[in-house]
């Protein structure tokens, strides 16, 4: 029983990271109907940025968050204005966006590789191996901090989407872009902002990831895949949906150890993805079904 509790808390902490990881992908897909395959690459690039800030300027990763968010917001807007904007909308555009952003991912990987070589890097802060006690068991301080940051981000995002004009515009555009033009909303600007925001969120995830794991230029692929699983599980309708999807995935992975050997716990997510897609094409929470 104690064991189960420890695992449960571990799963919750993991869910925090997973949610932060998936927000960006979910937002972009929910609003622009574009699958951002460069998502993993952004996470990786953000990890490297954090590492460089830490290594060269001694900036603590958590303090680097605002910097990373701004930098990647700008990068995201740039990507939209420079590339994504030209893709056709609708089904044909979906396929092309997959391939275009995949190309962007390859380029990001290569740039990082050229700058920093393929070696593994890790960030060693003074508190990286400290732990704190929760309900009798010990957990890494960094995992707890990551969870807290993720929760704050979730709340902030939710407030942005529900309380601000911009947020409402984003949600309106997600529902019906054409009506929005009629209502006087500059749809293109909303798209650009959303893409930037989604990229910024991926950047945030990258900062958090850098404090938890070692990374190299190939980092990010499994994060991308898990983000897909999460947005399918939880739907892209709301921030809360993504958070729920993250919780489901995290618990499935952590508790699957009772059913499958530890090696296969990563496969659990993918199997879950396929099963859910087949049984409920709209995701567990019955969101929009793509035709």
């Amino acid at each position: 029983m104690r064991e189960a509790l420890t695992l449960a808390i571990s799963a919750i902490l993991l869910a925090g990271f997973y949610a932060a990881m998936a927000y960006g992908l979910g937002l972009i897909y929910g609003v622009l109907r574009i699958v951002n395959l460069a998502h993993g690459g952004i996470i990786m690039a953000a990890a490297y940025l954090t590492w460089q800030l830490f290594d060269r300027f001694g900036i603590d990763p958590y303090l680097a968050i605002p910097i990373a968010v701004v930098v990647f917001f700008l990068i995201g807007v740039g990507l939209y204005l420079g590339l994504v904007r030209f893709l056709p909308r609708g089904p044909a555009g979906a396929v092309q966006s997959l391939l275009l952003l995949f190309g962007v991912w390859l380029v990001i990987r290569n740039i990082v590789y050229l700058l920093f070589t393929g070696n593994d890097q890790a960030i060693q802060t003074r508190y990286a191996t400290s732990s704190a006690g929760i309900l009798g068991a010990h957990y890494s301080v960094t995992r707890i901090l990551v969870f807290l940051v993720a929760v704050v981000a979730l709340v902030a995002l939710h407030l942005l989407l529900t309380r601000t004009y911009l947020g409402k515009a984003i949600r309106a555009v997600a529902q019906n872009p054409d009506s929005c033009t009629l209502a006087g909303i500059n749809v293109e600007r909303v798209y650009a902002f959303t893409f930037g925001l989604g990229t910024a969120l991926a950047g945030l995830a990258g900062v958090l990831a850098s404090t938890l794991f070692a990374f190299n230029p190939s980092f990010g692929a499994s994060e991308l895949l898990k983000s897909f699983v999460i947005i399918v599980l939880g739907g892209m309708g709301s921030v809360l949906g993504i958070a729920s999807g993250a919780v489901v995935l995290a618990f499935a992975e952590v508790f699957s150890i009772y059913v499958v050997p530890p090696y296969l716990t990563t496969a659990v997510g993918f199997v879950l993805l396929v099963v859910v897609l087949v049984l409920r094409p709209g995701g567990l929470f019955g969101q929009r079904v793509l035709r």
Partner: protein
Amino acid sequence: MAVITMNGRSARLPAIVALATLGAAALGLAACTPTQSSDDSGGADAIPAKIVIGATLPLTGTESKTGGRFKQGYELAVEAENADGGLDLGGKKVPVELKLLDDTTDQAKAVNLAQRLITQDKVNFLLGTYSTTLVEAQSTVAEQNQIPYVNGGGAATSIYGKGFKWIFGTLAPVENLATTEMQWISEQQAAGKLPKPAKVALIWENTSHGKDFRKGVKDFATAHGTDFQIATDESFALDGKDFSAILSTVRTAKADLLMVDAHLPDFITMQRQYLSSTMCNKLITYGARGAESDARAALGQKGVDYILSAVWWNAQLGDKGLNKDFIDRFTAKYGAAPEWYQAEGYEAARALLAAIAGAGSVNKQKVRDTLSTMNIDSILPGGKLSFPPANGGQADYPFVVQQNLPDGTSPIIYPADVATGKGVAPNPNCKG
């Protein structure tokens, strides 16, 4: 099948006939393929103007760091040989040229480039690439073309268990890593420092490296009856992110010894999670990992204290003879101390060169035979290097066990004849 028909006839029958004919034709035609006219011999006995040794290494890609190190070793050995004009073949000094290509850590490229080196560049001999799967794939090319292939980058016994005659490896089997560590542990048990029987939590990455490590531990445990009890035996996928599941099985097993085989990034992640969960065991080892400066940088000195590791070669192995020679040469050329990667690369190249000199020609068969029977002095533990045919051409020698001490050093603690320090067990930070 509701087919839209335009002239009223279904398109199925002709299609099926067509496919069937195609299938039969394919099977029949497959028999009619030209065969290659036989190639030239394995090399005349004439003394060539230069000896060309071909090799591929992962100079880019995931293993680029290690590939670069092997390159250093190869180049150092070739340079040393050329220092006095070249290799002595029947009284004449023949310069040695190393033709090195980048296989980008990709199996298919390693195979194709090896093919190219053999058939297009017409190299005399091959040095191997790095990482077991690449070596295993590339070795088939060498065997098919009957050209001697000496490598320092593939340790899995599966490479040498295929009955190949042309493949030679300087890396001792990873099982020896486990065995050597277990031997030291046995000594500690005899001295009362570690419990007998000792509970072992065995965690291994799902690669040939990990599997061989696991085999070594299990074989030793079985051979030593009641001294060891394997409480957990689990594998994990490379580049794992969350080891809490595995670590929790270790915790519930209440193991005395935690024996893990992992690559650097997984070691760092796992050790971090281990430390933060305030777990502790009387002894920890991560296979070959732990003593690297990268590990210390990522985890801090306290994070790596008392970690046991075993490597194929260590610079502390000797300040005399061949070892001193190698270390001095290396430091002079590259300005840093060598690690086992460079040492293994160096030895592989040196062994090949020694075999060519011993055979007195570039005849591939002769050099292969020399490699098969040679037993030369070496910088490797044990002082000797040979490629016993009984092992399929893989060298066999003990590993050196080292332990991280709080003062920042990692002395060799076993085998006794090369030890530079005393090991500590159990972990003083963990008495329970």
